[in-house]
């Protein structure tokens, strides 16, 4: 059967790839995609631990559903910011959004 560590390794790989995307991408929407990858990695971990530790404890499911809600909220507001920014500055490159930078 599949050991738990396999799932954790998959989640780790997804998390690292997502982290790279967040740190290295130039386009703000691509950064949000990286965040989504990281959130998915977290969800795999939550569900894997739920399955291997205690199926009766529903916390794994409840937290995973909360992560869905948080991801949706984050994407909605994040993309709204990107669109608003694009309308004013005609750019979606994250390193050109430096108005608050001194």
């Amino acid at each position, binding site marked *: 059967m599949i050991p738990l560590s396999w799932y954790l390794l998959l989640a780790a790989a997804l998390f690292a790839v997502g982290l790279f995307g967040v740190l290295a991408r130039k386009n703000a929407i691509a950064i949000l995609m990286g965040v989504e990858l990281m959130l998915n990695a977290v969800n795999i971990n939550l569900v894997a631990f739920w399955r291997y530790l205690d199926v009766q404890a529903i916390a794994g499911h409840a937290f995973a559903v909360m992560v*869905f809600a948080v991801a*949706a909220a984050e*994407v*909605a507001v994040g*993309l709204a910011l990107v669109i608003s920014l694009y309308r004013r500055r005609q750019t979606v490159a994250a390193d050109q959004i430096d108005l608050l930078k001194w």
Partner: protein
Amino acid sequence: MDNWLFIGIFILVAGVFPAMPIIMFHLFGPKRSNPQKLETYECGMETVGETWVQFKVQYYIYALVFLIFDVEIVFLYPWAVAFDSLPLLGVVAGVLFIFLLADGLVYAWRKGALEWS
């Protein structure tokens, strides 16, 4: 798990079913192509510029409201399944949840974000 094995096989077969006639069509259909035929179909006019249209923000707003509603409705399905064992408080919690959901719609409506202009 067996159920999902069935679904997995179904996905594969469902992919093959429409792919078969398309491949057959690709192999046996007539091929008398010329560059004119492969041009973009825009009422016979020459295509000007790249394919790029500035879309209205309206499309995004609808998708946004849909996303939020989608997630909230997903929360309600387990609640509906467990309805028989819920106490009054649980039922009220669900109804309150739907009420909060409706508030978002009211805001969008009052803001005029639902108008197709």
